[in-house]
């Protein structure tokens, strides 16, 4: 008996988004990074095309993040300087691009000024030649002040700017159109709001082919399954022809992982859980590899061993 063909046939594909601009394209990057373009679910090469592998963006912040010593120690003393941290990410950890977050701008923290943030963007762009993702601090009002300055500092470099939400999308659209950057559209673990933000971006005149979706990111054990399902549903909707959901997706794995106790508390607090030095990296890698299966395209990661492990998975499966 002939076995029936069980391959899925999709009618559409995920958008292709390129980040970064080389000299010829009006920027100064040594290379660009392209994600998306898949016409099937992750790793199912026999069903469709997967022209671009998922990529890893090295986590960098303007100030040292509030992470435990074993994690920061694994990265090295370079965490104290965004420039050196970015360089180490590229040269030693082998990341594809840099994700720069302006934690220091948070009004509840150091409250860094917009021009200070812009200076960091400039310095990082000079220090490395890979494409750049730029995030605000997460406070909408403050981000409305810092993102325009950061965007201006990266003008022409075709950065990926995060993030546009229902509450602040107009500012982000305006600066990204003016300075020619790509946009991260963000929704709080809510596929319906995710779609709505994309509709709003489109209504504001922004081309959805230049958008990467961000359904925030849940660390392993803290709502991981909710985000996993949403990422998967977004990808399926995109493949089925819903052009509002066909954007590639990004996960801030490092930013979320080192906020949960399993990835920050050492053995003295969690007896029997093993050394944090190893466990933190494992938590980060396991989280990323889960979202890899769900269909995300860009992974913001920090711990070198975690990066190595996820890279190996990507290369083995694709």
């Amino acid at each position, binding site marked *: 008996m002939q076995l029936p063909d069980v391959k899925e*046939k999709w009618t559409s594909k995920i958008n292709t988004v390129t980040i970064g601009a080389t000299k010829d394209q009006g920027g100064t990057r040594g290379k660009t990074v392209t994600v998306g373009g898949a016409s099937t679910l992750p790793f199912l090469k026999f069903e469709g095309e997967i022209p671009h592998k998922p990529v890893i963006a090295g986590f960098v912040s303007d100030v040292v993040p509030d992470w435990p010593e074993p994690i920061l120690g694994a990265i090295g003393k370079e965490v104290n300087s965004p420039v050196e941290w970015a360089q180490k990410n590229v040269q030693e950890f082998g990341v594809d691009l840099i994700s720069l977050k302006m934690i220091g701008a948070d009004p509840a923290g150091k409250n860094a000024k917009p021009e200070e943030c812009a200076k960091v963007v400039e310095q990082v762009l000079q220090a490395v030649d890979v494409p750049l993702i730029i995030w605000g601090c997460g406070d909408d009002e403050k981000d409305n002040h810092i993102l325009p300055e950061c965007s201006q500092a990266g003008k022409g470099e075709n950065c990926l700017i995060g993030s546009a939400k229902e509450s602040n999308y107009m500012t982000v659209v305006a600066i990204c159109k003016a300075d020619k950057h790509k946009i991260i559209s963000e929704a709080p673990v809510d*596929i*319906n*709001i995710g*779609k*709505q933000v*994309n*509709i*709003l971006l*489109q*209504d504001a005149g922004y081309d959805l082919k230049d958008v990467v979706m961000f359904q925030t990111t849940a660390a392993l054990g803290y709502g991981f399954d909710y985000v996993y399902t949403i990422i998967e*549903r977004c990808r399926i*909707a995109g493949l089925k022809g*819903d*052009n*509002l*959901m066909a954007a590639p997706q990004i996960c801030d794995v490092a930013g979320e992982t080192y906020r949960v106790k399993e990835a920050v508390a050492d053995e003295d607090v969690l007896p029997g859980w093993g050394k944090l030095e190893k466990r933190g990296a494992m938590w980060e890698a396991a989280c990323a590899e889960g979202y890899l299966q769900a269909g995300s395209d860009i992974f913001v990661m920090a711990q070198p061993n975690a990066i190595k492990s996820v890279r190996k998975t990507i290369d083995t499966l694709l």
Partner: protein
Amino acid sequence: MILIGERVNAGFKDVKNAIINKDGNVIKEWARKQSEVGASYIDVNLGTASNKPEDLCWMIELVQEVVDTPISIDNNKPNMLKDAMKVCKKPPLVNSTTAVEEKMNQLFPIVAEYNASIIGLVMDETGSPANADKRVENAAKLMEKAMEFGLSPDQLYLDPIVMPLNCMQQQAKEILAAANQFQLFSDPPCHIVCGLTNISSGAKHTHIINRVFMTMMIANGCDAVICNVLDEELVNTILTAELIMNKAIYADSYIEAFRKKAKG
């Protein structure tokens, strides 16, 4: 939902006159209007205005001059179809065949050759089916024959044959039951289409009958419809019913987004 715009049809006086007088503007205008509101196919029907293949081709070419929406060729004569297929820029939808052996043997090979799709009316030599069982039986014949000619399920649109509510009231329930069973023939299923306006033919409150019946058809697996795509409330009803059936992802502005996409 696959929306098949019904308006370029010689059953409408203005289109009939346009064909007789060779006035292309009327046809172009209806093609443009229907495409702008999101039609997936423009149905082109020559009716009784002519029986010449060149007139059918002329109509198709006029539509393709103004829009790039694919054509639904509303004709079942093999010689007409063969000519019409050649002028279609995108794979068309043939409207339609019955489950009559001879008809299927004539039309399915043409559809297969042009990688087109076809609507299969679930009627046979004995005429229109009177109950759900007969509809399902004829649908199975269509499905089997289509597979025989190498068509995939998504190239076949099963039409349960909608009948007027005002004189054949007992049929609506049978049609819904039949559509529901069509879904079980294959995985992935074939399309299920209906000629919507038949349900309200001759009735007084046509709009509400169309909308309610459409909703119930969608609940029973219908994913394509030949209708007045310019009826905004009908299209809104369809979009909403599809969300309720979890066929699309909800967003607050789902109606506005559909209109915007339609306008390009």
